[in-house]
């Protein structure tokens, strides 16, 4: 799996799923065996009941079955339950194995791809993909996978058992069985559409909720929160209706399966009843006694039971296919991504010269070539409206992306900085929202290296964040939860800046670091940044706002490639709204 060159990437979701299922082949095999054991026990039960009942009716004087017979009955019933129990256990472990495999598979691609560089993969979507989407396939890998086979084997076993005493009943079963399968395929086909619509409604509701909870204030101040709650109720009802649509199809398929099963069981019963009453005499190998009658009647519903269970589990397949579709998207992006360069050790940065550099996606530049030169202690402002590729350029300079054209010259030598650890070590990066990990403040600052607390506080002081940290519960051990916890945007940026002071990168790249801050906080941030620069750091900062130019030694205007800019940013805006999920 680690070879990334196989050109036949998974063409369908089902192929991907069955590939993953192979990791638990042994479990799946045992599970099928246990399923067959269950059906054997069911047949044995029917046999036991039928023969003893037959004796009860025809034998006179009647004698109760002996102790051995009763032991058989208990044995049959307990074995059946036990096989069922063991089957679920095995399924559970298979499910863990397969999901682990898928998770690693997805993680490998996510990291190799540097997924963050692809704005079309949203953070929440990828997080969901890596966690809940895979997690919730528990049932699919635990039950469905084995059941897919059992839904064929078990009815066949029942059919063989029935055929041993009579040939009309197996025929009745054999004719109604395929009808159910055809119907299930039809239903599954329609269910796909409905569940896609359902997912869309759920995403809409989620977006609405998140947004309105975040932007509650304007509505509160105008006093129209009641209307908003009504709007939310409406969307919630839309979601309910689309969910019910999915469920109606699912329930209907269950009902039809049950209906077919009931009709054919009734057919069997009527056939047997009339046979007993001597209305006709066909179908039986050697007459028909109560034994055959009860045996067949007890088996008939067992023929349909596996199919019905399969119908009940079918929704798991729909979910699993959706997951696989998302994984394939990831895999495709990974296939298109550039390959890892061989690593070499780069010198400490003294100066950087950039000549006609173009950055972009997959050999397609997004901006006009830029050129500049930067020495220690200098700062450069990268200016340009949104959508001109400022972030793409910064990512390229950081070595996260391959360059499309031009040269990066470090200390006078043309250098390929793409994916070089020795380059990464010298580069700091601060995006619009501070990148703070879910972990303690200490972990956030040290990022795996060892530093004494005094050193950490010194860095925090330089970033004007010392008093802030001292006021937090637990200070350096304060855990930053999702979304920065109690920290405001400005505070989070200061922590991120403290990280810069701590690691002292030679080159600091900042992507609109003040866009989310209010004026005053932004000014303070720039003052602290000045300190970094005075210590000899190189700064490249992008912004679409005007900045007081006294901070920067040079300003570079970034221009989008005319043909691309508008249409690209527009399609981008559109796609985000139409496809909320992956």
């Amino acid at each position, binding site marked *: 799996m680690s070879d990334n060159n196989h050109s036949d990437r998974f063409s369908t979701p089902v192929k991907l799923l069955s590939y993953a299922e192979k990791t638990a082949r042994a479990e799946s095999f045992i599970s099928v065996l246990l399923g067959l054991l269950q059906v054997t026990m069911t047949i044995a039960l029917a046999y036991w009941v039928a023969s003893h009942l037959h004796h009860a009716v025809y034998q006179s004087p009647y004698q109760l079955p002996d102790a051995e017979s009763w032991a058989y009955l208990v044995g049959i019933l307990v074995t059946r339950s036990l096989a069922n129990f063991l089957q679920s256990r095995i399924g559970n472990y298979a499910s863990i194995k397969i999901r682990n495999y898928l998770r690693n598979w997805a993680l490998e691609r996510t990291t190799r791809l540097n997924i963050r560089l692809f704005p079309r993969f949203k953070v929440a979507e990828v997080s969901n993909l890596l966690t809940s989407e895979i997690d919730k396939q528990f049932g699919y890998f635990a039950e469905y996978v084995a059941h897919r086979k059992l839904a064929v084997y078990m009815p066949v076993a029942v059919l063989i058992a029935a055929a041993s005493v009579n040939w009309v009943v197996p025929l009745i079963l054999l004719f109604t069985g395929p009808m159910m399968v055809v119907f299930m395929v039809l239903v599954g086909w329609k269910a796909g559409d409905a569940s896609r619509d359902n997912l869309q409604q759920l995403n809409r509701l989620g977006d609405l909720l998140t*947004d309105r909870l975040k932007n509650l204030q304007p509505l509160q101040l105008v006093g129209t929160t009641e209307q908003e709650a009504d709007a939310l109720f409406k969307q919630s009802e839309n979601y309910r209706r689309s969910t019910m649509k999915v469920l109606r199809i699912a329930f209907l398929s269950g009902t039809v399966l049950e209906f077919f099963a009931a009709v054919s069981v009734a057919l069997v019963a009527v056939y047997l009843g009339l046979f007993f009453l001597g209305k006709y005499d066909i179908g039986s190998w050697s007459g028909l006694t109560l034994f055959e009658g009860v045996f067949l009647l007890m088996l008939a519903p067992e023929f349909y039971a596996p199919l019905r269970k399969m119908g009940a589990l079918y929704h798991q397949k729909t979910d699993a296919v959706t997951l696989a579709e998302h994984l394939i998207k990831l895999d495709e992006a990974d296939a298109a991504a550039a390959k890892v360069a061989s690593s070499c050790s780069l010198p400490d940065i003294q100066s950087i010269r950039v000549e006609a550099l173009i950055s972009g996606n997959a050999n397609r530049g997004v901006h006009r070539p830029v050129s500049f030169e930067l020495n220690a202690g200098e700062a450069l402002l990268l200016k340009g409206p949104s959508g001109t590729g400022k972030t793409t350029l910064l990512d390229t300079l950081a070595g996260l992306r391959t360059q499309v054209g031009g040269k990066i010259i470090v200390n006078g030598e043309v250098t390929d900085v793409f994916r070089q650890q020795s380059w990464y070590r010298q580069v700091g990066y601060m995006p619009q929202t501070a990148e703070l990990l879910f972990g303690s403040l200490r972990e956030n600052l040290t990022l795996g290296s060892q530093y004494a607390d005094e050193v950490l506080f010194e860095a925090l002081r330089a970033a004007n964040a010392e008093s802030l940290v001292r006021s937090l519960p637990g200070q350096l051990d304060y855990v930053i939860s999702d979304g920065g916890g109690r920290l405001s945007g400005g505070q989070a940026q200061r922590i991120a800046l403290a990280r810069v002071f701590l690691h002292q990168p030679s080159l600091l790249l900042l992507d609109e670091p003040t866009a989310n801050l209010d004026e005053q906080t932004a000014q303070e941030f720039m003052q602290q940044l000045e300190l970094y620069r005075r210590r000899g750091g190189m700064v490249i900062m992008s912004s679409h706002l005007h900045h007081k130019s006294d901070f920067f030694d040079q300003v570079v205007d970034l221009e989008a490639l005319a043909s691309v800019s508008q249409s690209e940013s527009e399609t981008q805006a559109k796609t985000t709204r139409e496809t909320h999920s992956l």
Partner: protein
Amino acid sequence: MTRLQKHYLYLLWRNKGFSLLGIMMAVITAYAGIALVATAGWFISAAALAGLTAVTAMAFNYLTPGAIVRGFSMARTAGRYAERLTSHEATFRLISRLRSDIFRFLASRFWVEQPFDRHQTGSRLLQDIQHVESIYLSAISPGVVVVSVSAGYLGVLGYFLPEALMIALPVVGSVVVIMPLLYSRLVIQPQDELHTLRSTQWQTASSLISNFRTLVLHDRIAKATDDLTTQASRADGLEVKAVNRQQWIAFLTQVQLVILIVAVFYLALNAASLQTLEPANALMLLLLSLGSAEILVAACPVVASLQLGIRALNRLNHVAELEAKDTNEPRELIASKATQSTLQLSDLCYQYPGQPDPVFAHLNKQFKGSGWYWITGPSGSGKSTLMALLAGQLSAQLGHIQVVSADKQFPAVMPQSIGVLRAPLRDNLCLHDDYSDEQLWQALSIVELDQWARNLPQGLDTWLGDGEWQPSGGETKRLGLARILLQDRGIILLDEPSAGMDAALAQRLFARLAEHWQQKLVIVNTHQTFLMQSDQTEIPMSALITT
């Protein structure tokens, strides 16, 4: 009982038609299913017995039992379909209602002193709230079914084979009462842990993805992915532990039911041999027991589902802090026929909870008539706190605020950060009030956003906000001003309205607004006093506090 639990019961009561119908359907379906199996069994054996002699075969009425079997079979199939539809419909309706009611409550408070976790609240209201459905779907409805099936089964058994009750009573009691309690004891705790682990796992994943650049540059990706995999494996292990326990209890239950079935069969055959029971009825009782056992197995998770549902309610209750006291409007609105507006602050004291010193104590001030008041002062001097008090977002510990306004409305407030809703520009301006396009364009042109709006891909219908068209900082401020212009109230409060705008534009704008709002009482918080017009008043915060 928490507030939300009460509200849930209230909603259930309000929905009682649907809810009761669902339960009734479930009971009918279960009965029909069992009766179907039992009657069919009886029919077969009776027919076989009748077929023994030609005379009985002729006399045997096979049409009526056949019709009964068909009737039960149809009833079961149709009943199950209808039951599932009604019970799901009932629950989802209730959840829709619950969701918007919780939002209503959240929105009724300003959350300035104590912000709430919006991300968590959002995911709870979206997904976690669905766990509430288990109260009705997996606890109440199956609970009623199990109890009525047990009663019916024991009744029939008591009628045909009273001696079987000796074993049936304790087994049914154990399966319906003891096993569900055991199940909930064993399963709830790992479930709870699993819930926490899964949400930590999500946070780790989200942290990994959103901090990608930092992690790559610091060579921490491998460590972060390891962490995530470890967490996922732990959660998976716990999940399996919980499921294993569930299946273990289910197995125990099944063994008990096996004992019951074998015993019933033994006793029935015995009774048949003693000729105290018709042989056909013996088969009927056996199939009845098998059918009932299938339904009784479903009793196991009932208590646990109830608890899980209640826990989900409590989580919601907690995240929305529903136990907190409702806040009343802290300001007093006095309707007056006079055209003059007054904002009277008397003896106002405010202190943030947990802070040692009050922001200000005994603040008195009257703003009267029309005109602009610019409140100035360094940050931290309490300007924003004062604004929040005037806006009704904070409530003073002492003193009061009286608003006298000819339009009988509280002031229009422009806060420091303008929330841009993910919605069309039109909705962002109207905020659920009705304004004509003409009014919207007029307001936009006053704040010089008309050209900008015309250039948007769909004009007034262009979506703004996260993931959509994102206005710049200065544009956002002007959008906020346009909202205030539309609201057209007698008193206007502006908190740092010009931050992020370029100076020339701000100057033009505020000159125009001064003209437009001549008849209004306007109070502005600002750093930028150069925007003040000559006939407007500056009030330093320091002067306010000392008076």
